[in-house]
């Protein structure tokens, strides 16, 4: 299968990496660049105590993780066309026998929607655990520079001036989107709508040459984890912006769970 797909007004390229799952790069919609690269660098898993007494911490141990990459890929990448679009799917199984199993999806719709999703199958070590998939989106809407980020809060869209953390508080615009990145030059935008049940948050970071995508959520032995470790106080208004979308999915009886946002391009 070719790693370049042109269909439903989209043109995308894809590859499987050692560390970041199924990556989409140089994605264009209606012949206009939308994304330089989108990836799923890691899924960390936290376990909580199953039975908790009043004096005990809920989490005794820290998180662990293994990269979704070639080493955990099961079978081939699948391309399917559906009514109004196409999708790519990849299965990953961390470990023999699969205590942690995932299906990564990238779906592209003719109406401009894009869905980077992760189906989490479980089962994990026990029932009390939480998954934290981290997506990294380097949107280059009509080019890399001259972008602004907005966050819907207090009943209106607010421009984000500096790098930082932008949690989903339950508030959203009428179309359920919570964040949007806009190109000043053309007014084109990419809007992000979180999954209602995954307690999502967004980190906005100015793109830096020296901040290559991390190969781990752990920045140092005692340091801030990534992507929070990247956020400082630099201005992102009018800059090349990189977004991290982090979902928090607690394991319960309703698994499998499909995590990840809806992303809509509007020109």
């Amino acid at each position, binding site marked *: 299968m070719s790693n*370049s797909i042109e269909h439903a007004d989209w043109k995308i390229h894809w590859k499987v990496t050692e*560390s970041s799952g199924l990556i989409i790069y*140089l994605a264009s919609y209606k012949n206009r*660049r939308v994304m330089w690269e989108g990836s799923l660098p890691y899924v960390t898993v936290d376990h909580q105590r*199953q039975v908790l007494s009043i004096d005990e911490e809920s*989490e*005794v*141990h*820290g*998180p*662990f993780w*293994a990269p979704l990459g070639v*080493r955990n890929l099961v079978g081939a990448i699948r391309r399917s066309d559906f009514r109004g679009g196409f999708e790519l799917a990849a299965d990953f199984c*961390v*470990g*023999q*026998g699969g*205590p942690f199993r995932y299906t990564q999806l990238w779906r592209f719709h003719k109406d401009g929607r894009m869905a980077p999703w992760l189906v989490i199958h479980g089962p994990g*070590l*026990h029932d009390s655990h939480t998954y934290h998939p981290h997506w990294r989106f380097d949107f*280059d809407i*009509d080019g890399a520079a001259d972008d*602004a980020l907005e966050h819907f809060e207090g009943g*209106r869209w607010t421009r*984000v*001036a*500096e790098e*930082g*953390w*932008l*949690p989903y508080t339950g508030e959203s615009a009428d179309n359920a989107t919570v964040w949007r990145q*806009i*190109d*000043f*030059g053309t*007014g084109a*935008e990419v809007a992000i709508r979180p999954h209602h049940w995954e*307690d999502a948050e967004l980190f*906005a970071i100015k793109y*830096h*040459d*020296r*901040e*290559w995508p*991390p*190969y*781990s*959520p*752990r*920045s*140092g*032995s*005692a340091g801030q984890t990534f992507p*929070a*470790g990247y*956020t400082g*106080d630099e201005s992102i*208004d009018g800059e090349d912006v990189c977004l991290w979308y*982090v979902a*928090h999915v607690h394991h319960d009886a309703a698994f499998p769970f499909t995590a990840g946002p809806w992303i809509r391009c509007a020109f």
Partner: protein
Amino acid sequence: MARDKRARKTASRPGKIQAAGRKPASKATQPAARSARVRTRPTASLTVDPALFDPLTEGERADALRVLTEDRRLASMAKVARYRVVAIEPLVLKPPNELFGRRVARVVAYDYAADRCVDALVDLDNGVVAALQIDDKQPMLGRDEEALAVAVALADERVKRELGLSDEPLAALHYWSRRDVERASSQRSAAVLFGQAGARPTLVAVVDLADSQVTEVVPAEQW
């Protein structure tokens, strides 16, 4: 520059639970860009050769590692040879970076002799190390490290005692503890899961990869 920037950050851990430690993004006083009049100046999309993103060939990977280990700045790492290669993958940089348009390999290794992460960009077109970061980051485990963790856990007497007849190693994952008193908070560690394929794991062994020893053995249901 990136390291300086990170130095300003405070310690936290992943997950919504630690949200209080995060820096909320500050909001501008300007109106929303969508509602304001946007400039009509078109922004040119970059033309880039998609082949630059292609996976590296075996030869390119070997070339990248060879160039890296021959770099004088890493002479002691190469000589002592207690490093493990974590990943060698292509990286495509945007302009104005001088590496834009070149075939670049990113090599990530962990040097156990110095407890340091080596993160380098190798310009394959010119056969030079174009950028080098050496710091205390903890990259993912390489395949060799996963195999080492399993071997260390299997040789441990406590693990042997706890395993059932049909239990086997299921997975080795990169792990760190949040409690400062534990070795796994500062030492590069793995969690090795044991059990039967297709069922939930029954046992977790934490392996200190630097000292090749098991530091904790926990029944999976108590993890």
